[in-house]
């Protein structure tokens, strides 16, 4: 019963927090670029506007994929909040991503298909880092359950600093921020239009935005548990990472996908491996 309440709270409150964070993002980015920027609640206005538009589709199955993306992402977030197995949570998140990719593949559209290809590459880039983080956390807690992180009497950040840095790369990819916004950027057009999102519009686009809010919370949550001994510090840590991403986004240019693969697989995985190696040696 308790679990059910937590799930309901996550589903209801999640988007409020997530949308609010996206509002902060827009505002902060504007300030960094010398603009005034929209009100903090702009993402909610956008959502309502998109939702009230007529349903235009390019394929019969579009709703299936959007729903899959939304519901599996929510499920991943709920599993995380309930303290479930981190590996399975990552796999479920990947199911959401898979659904989005299939939606982009489902219609024969040059830009969407391009975006889909790149989205797979992004997934292939960040997934190993998430899983290595799960492995590293296991080496500290002897469990893959998220809830067991809270039983630890020291913050994970102390023993897993390099893993933490690698996770910041994942956060950048997941937030679709430069230099990794290659399959679809958060704002405006890019060289492949809006990549995976190109063929979505109206209510479908609204649901995709909603999914982002949940997704952001999940990734920030994984960063937050690096200071689980004091939840307030954990939240501050996650917010600091969030602000850092916005700054990086504004000072970095978008790079190409081969660069992303090389960077993430060399730097990101090396950081993780060195950290895990050290833990293994001093065990």
């Amino acid at each position, binding site marked *: 019963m308790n679990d059910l309440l937590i799930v309901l709270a996550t589903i209801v409150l999640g988007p409020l927090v997530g949308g609010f964070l996206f509002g902060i993002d827009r505002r902060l980015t504007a300030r960094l670029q010398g603009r005034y920027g929209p009100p903090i609640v702009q993402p909610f206005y956008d959502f309502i506007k998109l939702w009230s538009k007529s349903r235009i589709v390019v394929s*019969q*199955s579009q709703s299936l994929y959007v729903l899959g993306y939304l519901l599996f992402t929510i499920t991943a977030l709920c599993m995380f909040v309930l303290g479930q197995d981190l590996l*399975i949570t990552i796999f*479920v998140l990947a199911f959401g991503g898979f659904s989005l990719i*299939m939606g982009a*593949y489902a*219609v*024969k559209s040059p830009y969407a298909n391009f975006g*889909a290809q790149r989205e797979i590459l992004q997934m292939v880039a960040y997934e190993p880092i998430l899983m290595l983080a799960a492995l590293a956390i296991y080496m500290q807690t002897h469990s893959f359950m998220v809830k067991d992180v809270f039983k630890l009497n020291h913050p994970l950040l102390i023993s897993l600093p390099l893993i933490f840095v690698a996770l910041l790369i994942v956060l950048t990819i997941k937030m679709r921020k430069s230099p990794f916004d290659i399959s679809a950027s958060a704002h405006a057009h890019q060289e492949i239009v809006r990549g995976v999102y190109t063929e979505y519009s109206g209510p479908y686009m609204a649901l995709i935005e909603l999914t982002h809010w949940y997704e952001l919370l999940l990734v920030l949550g994984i960063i937050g548990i690096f200071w689980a001994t004091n939840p307030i510090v954990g939240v501050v840590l996650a917010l600091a990472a969030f602000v850092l991403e916005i700054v990086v986004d504004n000072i970095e240019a978008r790079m190409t996908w081969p660069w992303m693969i090389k960077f993430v697989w060399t730097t990101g995985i090396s950081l993780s491996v060195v950290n895990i190696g050290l833990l*293994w040696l001093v065990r």
Partner: protein
Amino acid sequence: MGSIAQLVAVAVLLPLVAGLICYFVRSSAVRTFTVVVTAIALIVVSLLLLQNGPFEYSPPPMAGMEWGTIILVADMALLVLFLALGIYLKNVLVTVFAVAQGAIMGYVEFGMGIRTEVQPAFFVDELSIIMALVISIVGSLICVYALEYMKDHEHHLHLETSRQPRFFFYMVLFLGAMNALVFSNNLLWVYFFWEVTTLCSFMLIRHDLTEVSMVNATRALWMNSLGGVAFAAGIMFMLQQAHTLSLKELISGQTPGVAIILPLSLLVFAGFTKAAQMPFQSWLLGAMVAPTPVSALLHSSTMVKAGVYLIVRLAPAYVDTHLSTIVAVAGAFTFLLTAVLAISQSNAKRVLAYSTISNLGLIIACAGINTSLAISAAIMLIIFHAISKALLFLCTGIIEHLIGSRDIEDMEGVVAKFPITGVITVIGVITMLLPPFAVLISKWAAIEASVNMPPIALIFIVGSAATTLFWVKWVGKLLTAPPTAVPIKAEKIAALYVAPLAILAALAVVLSILVAPVVDLVGKLAVAPYYKAAGIAAAGGDVSTGIGIATIWPLFLVLAVVIVPVYLFVRVRSEDVRPAYMCGENAVGVSTMEFRSVGDKPEMVNNSNYYFDKALGEASLNGWANPAAIALLVALVGVVVWR
């Protein structure tokens, strides 16, 4: 319910009898009847064996002849046949390996003066029963499918006399040999049936008698004969050092692993050749020249599974040895490299082949990790991989006959054009790739089993990412279609195709929903007797490894919530459909996929997947990967000798 003797007789001898009927009675009706009845009988028998549980059994002598003698004679005859084949094919390797095996076997039987008979003849534990279920259910369904497929196949080839009699002889015989292999207790018997599967696969790969199929069949033969030599040598050293060839005794922990490490490493080496691990992957890749049912059979329920069966079966004997560590490293190496190689392939059968080798590598790596959890994961993978992989091969075979190509790029829109075949293929890929389906749950168990060997865990994790890449690209292609609101019309599809496909797809889904009770039984019955712990267990409807819990039922609930409402309620009106975005340069109409190119000339949109064949292709990886794999094999046998 029949007695044990009858069940074993049906499982082992019925395929031989049915094969002979197929061979000598050339009527297609009789063949169809025989194969279908055999399939049903084998499936029923395997289920009865499951219900009956583990047993030991020694068949009484037949017509005054001990079965050991009969097998010995048959074995010698088989080696003579291999020798004749070597001479006929003018292949030095096949010839030399046949002579070597004959010499070793002769020495074992007549030169060593140690009794080779073993009691009981059949030692059937839960692992054997699981293998029998996989062989009898998945294998039989493939044979049924083959009835329809071979009709099509020969129709395309315009043969004057049908070659189906010999085809079905070897297909059905294969199942009997596999059943016997997993039941046998005496390593000599295992070896004989091992060689029978080598013969069957050789005959089936060369079935079409084209130049390529002859070359590839010969390669399969020499590589597996090399494995045969290792197997024979393993038997010789085992007899010398352990004075027994009884699998039951070898894995019961009475003989310390260190004392018999050399024979064990040779047997594991034999398993590597049969399971097409690097550097032997080329025989299985070449085997795809055979008609698709052969590929399905070799890749899912027979042949390669004999290799991993031997390695998993012997795992309790080499637990906590350096051999075990090297097995883990070598398996993980193949898992990663072949997953990466699969990315560069656009030939669907080649992708499937690499995926098979990769999964077998994962199974072998689990055997090398050799904890209760790892062995549970290995057995789970054996079961669930067989089902989904068989399904995917059968689907690819149908698609190939429908569109005339096995290239993934040509499979664009198969789901829209042939919804039944297409959707089942997508189900096949999803059950291989995503949670909460059983293959992924097995992979999860494998990763959690590898935590105390972080280098192996790292390889598992990176390999999983590579796996995602090649599956997603393929399934995406299947789903791509021009914008349209026209309801899809189902294609006509033969009953002998639908039945195996539907059963395999249902098995893949239902066993995934029931994965918790299934793995609970695997852990309790097949693993706990040898490892003192089950390693994996059901926790309510979920699966627990002790260090993590895989959520199962809630995820199926979410999946249902995604699919059911859309299927029931969402209808797209044709006026809501828009063309794909092409910078406003679409030529006419909604579903035409043309855009205005240079000089307003209409041009078709043509999308293609990334394959990275320069970076990840066979040409760039095999050059160092094969030598590295050979080095690992040298380590496998070498470290042991050196110790």
